[in-house]
């Protein structure tokens, strides 16, 4: 599974080390009635300390991508192609564990094995959208606590401090007392009032916003190399959302943590990400630096998406530009470019016949569109 132990990971021109490389990833769901290509040929990388945003509408494959990285794709889905290279440099190596950089292809790792458990939740942490539904009432304290906590569920019958300490101890060499101390510190950092007392409260005693902050505290308490945040603030109010984004930015600065930020909220992503991947129906349609994407979008879908959000400020037009039609049936995708039936720049005889390639359209800027092909 471990491909090689090598000295250095690939670096970019600005000298930053690559942490995760996704190459031509394919995830398929074999269901009655056919095969859904949930992720179809996704390629991007994340450097240490960098935030990459993945945007798209529901069903575009952004959450499946996150789950593929952690090898948590729900059945009947499976990874059918591509590689996910993880350049591993453990922050808290256990005795006897190699300290050098390892390159691990996560697609070949046993999804229930020991290796992925070390990585998942510890080195690559994850925050899900809904703090409420992450609370699983059927879990009892005896159920695989480490696993549950590392998958970021709050256990209803356990005190927060104990839950956090379990996670911290699973990934860092600390005593229970030290782990508890870290838990209190983390709760303070995410803005929970009176953390010394809160650490002994149960999840149901917290508000939704506080619960989400606790989830973030748990995810970050292991000092992960990378955080996968899947719509982490969607269920929250703007004032709490702003607080949580601040916390994530600050921890990124202090711990050089990479963030894969999945959202459909263009306002949030504009302030968080350095690079953005736009997905539509499982396909990557555009990838660029955040400023290029917002100021010089190339793919008609990206353009339409940017125009369809209402913006604060002086009123300009009365109507929003909307994308015509609906998201197609994933079992019955359009021929050629999957976006062609809704595309304002549709070229008959071309877009419905030819599958567009991944074209470089500028420096660090790619788009999957026939407008940019000869």
């Amino acid at each position, binding site marked *: 599974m471990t491909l090689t132990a090598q000295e250095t990971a690939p670096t970019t021109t600005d000298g930053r080390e690559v942490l995760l490389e996704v190459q031509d990833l394919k995830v398929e769901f074999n269901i009655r009635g056919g095969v859904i290509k949930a992720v179809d040929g996704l390629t991007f990388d994340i450097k240490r300390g960098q935030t990459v945003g993945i945007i798209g509408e529901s069903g575009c494959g952004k959450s499946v991508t996150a789950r593929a990285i952690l090898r948590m794709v729900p059945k009947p889905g499976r990874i059918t192609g591509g590689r996910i290279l993880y350049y591993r440099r453990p922050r808290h190596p256990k005795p006897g564990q190699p300290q050098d950089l390892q390159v691990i292809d996560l697609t070949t790792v046993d999804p229930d094995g020991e290796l992925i458990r070390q990585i998942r939740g510890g080195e690559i942490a994850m925050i899900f959208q809904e703090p409420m539904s992450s609370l699983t009432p059927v879990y009892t304290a005896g159920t695989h606590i480490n696993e549950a906590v590392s998958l970021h569920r709050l256990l209803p019958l356990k005190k927060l401090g104990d839950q956090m300490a379990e996670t911290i101890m699973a990934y860092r060499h600390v005593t229970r007392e030290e782990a508890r101390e870290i838990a209190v510190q983390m709760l303070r950092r995410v803005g929970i009032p009176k953390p010394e007392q809160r650490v002994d409260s149960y999840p149901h005693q917290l508000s939704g916003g*506080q619960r989400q902050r606790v989830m973030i505290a748990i995810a970050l308490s292991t000092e992960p190399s990378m955080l996968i945040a899947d719509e982490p603030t969607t269920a929250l109010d703007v004032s709490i959302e702003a607080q949580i984004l601040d916390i994530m930015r600050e921890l990124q600065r202090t711990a050089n943590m990479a963030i894969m930020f999945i959202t459909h909220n263009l306002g949030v992503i504009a*302030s968080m990400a350095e690079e953005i991947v736009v997905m539509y129906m499982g396909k990557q349609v555009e990838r660029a630096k955040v400023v290029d994407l917002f100021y010089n979008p190339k793919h008609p879908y990206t353009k339409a998406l940017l125009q369809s959000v209402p*913006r*604060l*400020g002086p009123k300009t037009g009365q109507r929003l530009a909307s994308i015509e039609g609906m998201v197609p049936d994933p079992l019955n995708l359009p021929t050629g470019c999957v976006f062609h039936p809704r595309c304002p720049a549709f070229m008959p005889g071309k877009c419905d016949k030819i599958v567009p390639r991944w074209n470089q359209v500028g420096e660090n800027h790619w788009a999957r569109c026939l407008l940019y092909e000869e």
Partner: protein
Amino acid sequence: MSTSAPNGRIGETLLEVKGLKKYFPIQRGLLRRTVGYVKAVDDVSLYVREGETLGLVGESGCGKTTASRCIIRLYEPTAGQVLFKTRALSPDGSPQVVNLLELNREQMNRVREEIAMIFQDPINSLNPRMTVSDIIAEPMVIHGKYQKGVSEERIIELLRRVGLRPDHLRRYPHEFSGGQRQRIGIARALALNPRLVLCDEPVSALDVSIQAQTLNLLQDLQQEFKLSYIFVAHDLSVVQHISDRVAVMYVGKVVEMAGSEELYANPLHPYTEALLSAVPKPDPLYKSDRIIMQGDVADPSNPPKGCYFHPRCQYAIDLCRQKTPEFRELKPDHWVACHRAEELKLRGI
């Protein structure tokens, strides 16, 4: 209060809510003794003109949904007045202003024909065992307006109007996408020709592109049928886009109300200012200088003394801790409940 606006689309006051309160009792023990109240809506005053959209914004738990449900008496308000200009109660259909809270059951049912609702969740607000045609016909059946033939044509017309096809009539809700289901909900709301539609987070469950389609549809329908909307939402960008006027709620009270451009450009309440500054802007070059609100939203069962916002307000003075500010019209059509509204220079968008 001004009752007409220069814009020809907007007419006279259709609905005026005065001092609306809704307290939910907290009951404890074997005898279910009432030990306190959750003041979900605590003195809400607002008005809506004909053909106008009033946005109602605030954070979760601020009472915006409860307030909108009190208007149509889905919840029985504890106190206050809901004055509505109805045509349903007079035999010749001439308008008269009545307090909805004083109507008996039969009268209220007649007035409900004129007030419809659109809900947030397009999945749970449609009965999964009814066809689209039955769902849209249901209000007509309940109000005794269903006539074979005539009503069927009307249902097809409504479906067309919201962008669905007549062959969708015999299908069930699960066969539709979220955006289409919300269109079914909108068609149902229009079935009885309402004059006021209470929209409770109608687009917050929808994807960006579908959200834009739905907002455009709501605006078209407003023009065509001269509807008034109360648009409850937490997304300030969406509310600004759709609303003529906006009311901001905090812990059960309306703290500010003004024309939407005025409110966003020149907020008078520190809470509005903080809320606006926290909205993420879809512009990577925008340098945020947002105001950090300390602490959490006040507990509506045990609110602080004085102004409910004072523990989080960076401008709070002693007066704010002692005395509840009055909701007053500081500028024409710009209402605010803040002791320091005259002196503060607040930042808008």
